[in-house]
């Protein structure tokens, strides 16, 4: 596996055949392409958790009701979003991506934001063929609220060659914004074996 450098990223963005092209839209500035990564921007959509409506999350129970669990917020350009200490908020990238089947990626924080206490993504893998906006799991590990704006380059996508991959066909393909997912959705069969048999709290 080799990480793609600037020239390879640019070349993939310009690939003639659309199915083999790395698509990043909108790519507002070519300066987002770094020596071996691509800066990605914070989008406008934020999803917070309605804590009062969510006693716990248990993958073994199908009690997921998005309208009760999440609250969605849209932040206009040049408006603020306050991320409070130890708060988990989902946000989508401004950019919408399509990775060719030969490329995979992972999302990581940018150093300057990491130093401010912002963790940007915990589930960082982006599969070959993934098509959609990437969900960022924002967490403020610092002691004071962080002020975020849509458009900030808060994360970076590192790309690498992938061999023998099959195209991503998962649940999050073609997503355009961030939302909580039902962790119990794909695990019922497996969880029959693993989940606790006694009732939950």
């Amino acid at each position, binding site marked *: 596996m080799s990480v793609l450098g600037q020239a390879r990223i640019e070349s993939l*963005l*310009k*690939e003639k055949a*659309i*199915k083999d*092209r790395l*698509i*990043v*839209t*909108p*790519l*507002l500035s*070519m300066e987002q392409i770094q020596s071996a990564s691509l800066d990605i921007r914070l989008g*406008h959509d934020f999803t917070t958790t309605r804590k009062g409506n969510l006693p716990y999350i248990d993958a073994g129970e199908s009690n997921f009701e998005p309208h009760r669990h999440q*609250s*969605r*917020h*849209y932040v*206009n*350009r040049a408006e603020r979003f306050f991320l409070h200490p130890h708060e988990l908020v989902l946000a989508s990238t401004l950019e*919408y991506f*399509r990775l060719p089947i030969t490329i995979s990626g992972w999302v990581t924080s940018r150093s300057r934001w990491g130093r401010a206490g912002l963790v940007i993504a915990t589930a960082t893998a982006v599969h070959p063929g993934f*098509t959609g906006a990437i969900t960022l799991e924002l967490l403020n590990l610092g002691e004071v609220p962080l002020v975020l704006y849509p458009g900030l380059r808060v994360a970076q996508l590192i790309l690498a060659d992938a061999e023998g991959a099959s195209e991503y066909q998962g649940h999050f*393909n*073609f997503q*355009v914004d961030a939302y909580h997912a039902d962790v119990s959705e794909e695990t019922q069969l497996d969880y029959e074996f693993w989940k606790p048999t006694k009732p939950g709290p």
Partner: protein
Amino acid sequence: MGTLLQHFDNAHTAQTPRGLPQMLGALMARLEPNATLVAWPQSSYNYTIRDLLAPLKGMTQSLLSKEAHQRVFGSVAGPLNFVSFPRIERDNVLQHAIFGHELGHPLATEFLESERTTPAYSAALRRVTDALMAQYKLSTAPKGALGGSPAQTKAFVDGLRRVLVLRKRGLEELISDCVGALLFGPSALFASYDILSLGELDDPPGERSYPPRRFRLRVVKSLLDAEGYTSTLESALQAAEPAISAALVRYIKHINELTAQQTDKSNLGADPLIKLAYEWIEETLPGGTDFVRRRLESVRYDSKRMSAEVPELIERLRIRVPPSEIGVPPDAYVIDWRSALVAGWACRLRMLEDPAAGTDDGIEQAETINRLVLRAVEFTILGDEYRKFLTGRSSA
């Protein structure tokens, strides 16, 4: 005030896809630069636009001192347009082409006000008056008076009023339809058909005095044909997207067959008052169309851009990428976002012929197209704003 406030209930962003106000704002900024816009999803199935400023000013006039009133409203230069749309259609971005019609209402009003002083209007009014007098067997002799019984005179006055209302309401809708067609091109036709085909096509004007649905479709279709939109789109897609082009041709042919039937006109002719009003409408409509064509010269959707942009945008939609640009970075070309709507419609029409249409999978596919087109609208407008920002910064 309570009625007014309830309009704002549920107007929060989770209920209103942001591409919608952006789309309307972008059009409004070019049509009426001083206007402010509020978009509101409503439970009833209706698209409307109305100016809130005048009623707000009126309502608060007796509550505020003259100075306070001036302080509040003095700085508001243009209308405060309140746009409502059916909540059930909030994510159905392709259907939002119907807003072209709504944005057309102020222009239709402007035309109707401007024509009142023209000799053509006076002559037509005289002709209609004479026809009604003959119908109600009224004589103009002695000079200047209506010779007839009070009942006859009342019937005449009611009849004239009805003709004037029918004509005004009819022209308001039809001229607004023309504005929609010029602003959105083929998307206006497809969106209109989606809505108009929900009811009886040949019903004559009822309580609200709307023109028959078939009549409206015919007006939109004729204007699009005359402006070359339909033929341009068909030929642009023929080589690049044969399957989609074939579906589009079949759909347009279906609308052609519907509008070729004249059953609506037969119904209009059955009532003498409606007949008079619609003869007058048909006489006036070409002038109204010319009026809006002139007014929209710099804002209308350019069929050449449609032809250049839509095929590649469909290619992007096929791989489920927002149809927001063509070409590759750094030379990616920012499209007219109305092309994204046309590309979305072209895909949808093809999907309607798919055996999966109407199944869960088909519905999911259609919703994905909607989401991507909505994102494309947002990206296009954002891209424009960003470029203007960069240009402004480099020239400063």
